[in-house]
């Protein structure tokens, strides 16, 4: 067993009376790529938001590189604590809606947190940002504002922005769901390259093809629990559980 990067134990999360996560356990090894599938409302996105404490869980433990980040959970997202600093230095996240800073250029989107959080100099941050934007194929768009970029380009800037903080784990929250079909590929290709370079990734997605090709392990969630997990070939081709079969039937029929 490889070194553990991320370990979730008995994660529970509720919004008011609604239990969204009802005890989720996941272990992710260094360099592993996990794809999480499931119908909407199954708690996939909430799980990712738990991991980087945007929505801290009520119950359970989260270990990032062996450190429990839920010890003495405060009131959550607003508070600054060593847990927040620790997590956000190590865990990057990319959102469905890109969430690029709309008053900043592509380059500034990638440099801002480098300067303010990591304390890098302007020149350093710029060099790093340029390198990353070139890597995601946007070397010629540095000065563009988000509103002039396509959805796929915006999402690639968002990936570069997260990578600039040199995270050890990357979370992807349905990052292609808001994109036009012809733009999905460029974003998935970027993620595929990242996986090949050995990045540990936790990917919530509806792209079954991507999961089949890139994931080391596929997790199927429904109703706030893990229904089935295993290698993509097993879960996607020969699901054991009835719920998984149903879901895959619906998704693959499209």
């Amino acid at each position, binding site marked *: 067993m490889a070194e553990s990067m991320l370990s979730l134990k008995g994660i529970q999360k509720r919004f008011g009376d609604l239990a969204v996560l009802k005890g989720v356990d996941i272990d992710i090894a260094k360099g592993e790529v996990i794809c999480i599938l499931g119908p909407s409302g199954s708690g996939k996105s909430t799980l990712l938001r738990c991991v980087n404490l945007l929505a801290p869980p009520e119950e359970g433990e989260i270990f990032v590189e062996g450190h429990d980040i839920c010890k003495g959970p405060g*009131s*959550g997202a607003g508070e600054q604590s060593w847990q927040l600093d620790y997590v956000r230095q190590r865990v*990057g996240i990319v959102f469905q*809606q890109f969430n690029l800073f709309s*008053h900043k250029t592509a380059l500034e989107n990638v440099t801002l947190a480098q300067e303010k959080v990591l304390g890098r100099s302007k020149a350093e941050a710029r060099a790093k940002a340029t390198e990353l934007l070139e890597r995601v194929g946007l070397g010629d768009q540095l000065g563009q504002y988000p509103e002039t970029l396509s959805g796929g380009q915006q999402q690639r800037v968002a990936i570069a922005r997260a990578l600039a903080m040199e995270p050890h784990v990357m979370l992807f929250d349905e990052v292609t769901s808001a994109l036009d079909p012809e733009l999905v590929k460029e974003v998935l290709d970027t993620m595929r390259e990242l996986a090949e370079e050995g990045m540990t990734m936790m990917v919530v997605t509806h792209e079954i093809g991507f999961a089949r090709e890139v994931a080391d392990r596929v997790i199927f969630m429904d109703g706030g629990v893990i229904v089935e997990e295993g290698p993509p070939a097993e879960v996607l081709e020969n699901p054991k559980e009835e719920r998984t079969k149903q879901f895959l039937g619906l998704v693959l029929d499209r």
Partner: protein
Amino acid sequence: MSQFFTQYFNFDVMREHFGEVLVGFLQNLLVFAVAALLALTWGLVLALLRQLPGKKLMPIRFVTIAYIDFFRAVPILIIILMISGGVPFLSFLPQEVRIPHWFGRPDPFWYGVAALVIVYGAFTAEVYRAGIEAVPKGQMEAARSLGMSHFQAMRHVVVPQGVTKIPAPMLNELISLLKDTTLISVIALSESVLVSREVLSERLNSSSLTLTAIFFVIIILPLARVVDKLIARQQLKITRGSHIEVA
């Protein structure tokens, strides 16, 4: 009818007292400039305090909301009278704060500025709040997920975007603030309305008040047009923005 006309539109009276009234009006503009600068700053501080996150900071949020609600409810005139009547007797304050004569301005000037800043801080805080809340939640989340503190995220991401959404309503507050500088006449600051009323009692003619009104109209009318322009531009941005979303 002609009696009304001579009472309010006696051009001889206007001409003879033009200088005095203008000096008074400049006093209004000076109060406005100082109060506007301070109120815009104080309002932003209040808005930021109101947006503080987490359970621990609840008391601060609560006190801020109470402040904003209270000072939006109480008439400014009462605040002005209370400050000028009360502050001089707060013996724990140093003399130069109780009866301030900073920068060669008399104490009514500063009591008036204080009252306007206290009240308009509350009003502008609400305008800032509208701007801050109009910034999509994802912006704050993205900033926090990159490791920025709440304050850094506000400072570099949320507020710069929020303030671009509010110039029109903010300008409305400033117009209102400019007009309310005349209320300081009740504590004997020689601003345009007080000067006009002195002319009235001396000449038994109200044309000086009309002249004051004209001064205000001349300054404020263009500002009102600017507000219209800003609103139109904002609308255009919104429609263009949604078009890009779809495309």
